[in-house]
């Protein structure tokens, strides 16, 4: 039992309990807060396997932005006012499907024979001649080989942002002119 395994189990337990809470609790604001706990626990899992940059991104984007936007959406749409009807009628069927998906996915993962290393290693510890961190390695790959997809992703974000602004404007453009 290494300290790495202990840290992983702690983070995974928080993530799974939090995720169960997100889909089960009858109070939507509590669900939003539990989502924050789950996402931060997943950032902890990323740290355990040496994905430092992804852990930081997870805290910033999911822990910060996504949770705030979600809480705003919950408040603006008054989702929590009809607590009795938060789940729909196909709930038992949904539980069955989710359980089936879990069993199927786990069986597939356990049966797969992907060649793996004995231990998780940071991307920086192999291939580079010392002194380089995971950040440097990731940044180099992102801005050389993956530069075009990266730029396209930024364009997608811009279009989505403008689209969201236009969608939520009141009335038609003609009314405002």
């Amino acid at each position, binding site marked *: 039992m290494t300290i790495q395994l202990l840290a992983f189990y702690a983070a995974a337990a928080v993530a799974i309990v939090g995720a169960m809470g997100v889909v089960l609790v009858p109070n939507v604001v509590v669900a939003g807060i539990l989502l924050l706990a789950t996402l931060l626990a997943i950032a902890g899992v990323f740290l355990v396997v040496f994905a430092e940059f992804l852990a930081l991104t997870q805290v910033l984007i999911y822990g910060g932005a996504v949770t705030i936007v979600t809480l705003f959406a919950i408040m603006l749409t008054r989702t929590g006012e009809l607590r009795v009807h938060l789940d729909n009628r196909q709930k038992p069927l949904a539980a069955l499907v989710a359980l089936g998906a879990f069993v199927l996915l786990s069986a597939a993962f356990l049966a797969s024979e992907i*060649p793996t290393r004995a231990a998780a290693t940071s991307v920086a510890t192999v291939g580079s001649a010392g002194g380089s961190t995971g950040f440097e390695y990731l940044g180099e790959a992102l801005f050389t080989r993956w530069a075009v997809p990266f730029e396209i992703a930024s364009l997608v974000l811009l279009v989505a942002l403008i689209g969201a602004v236009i969608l939520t404007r009141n009335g038609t453009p003609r009314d405002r002119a």
Partner: protein
Amino acid sequence: MLELVHLQVLSAALFSIGLYGVLARRSAVLVLISIELMLNAVNVNLIGLGAFADRPAESRVFGQILAIFVITISAAELGLAFAIILKLFRSRGSVNTDELNLMKW
């Protein structure tokens, strides 16, 4: 010792929980939260593979890069989806998925 399977089972569990949320919740906001859980489950899997796969470092960094793109797209998707939900709430007064039958024929 921590192995790839640990991360993959965690990923499967989170994905299934998210799937349950998508299927069982009525409010579109809660459905979206569940979709975020599923996307995160995929990220756990990608990063686990990146950290453990027996490959040269050049290709092992792909796991993290793909995860960055997943995060980017999910942020864009979330912004747009909440804009649509807000618009829907203004015009229909409800965001329950079983009451949105505008396009039903």
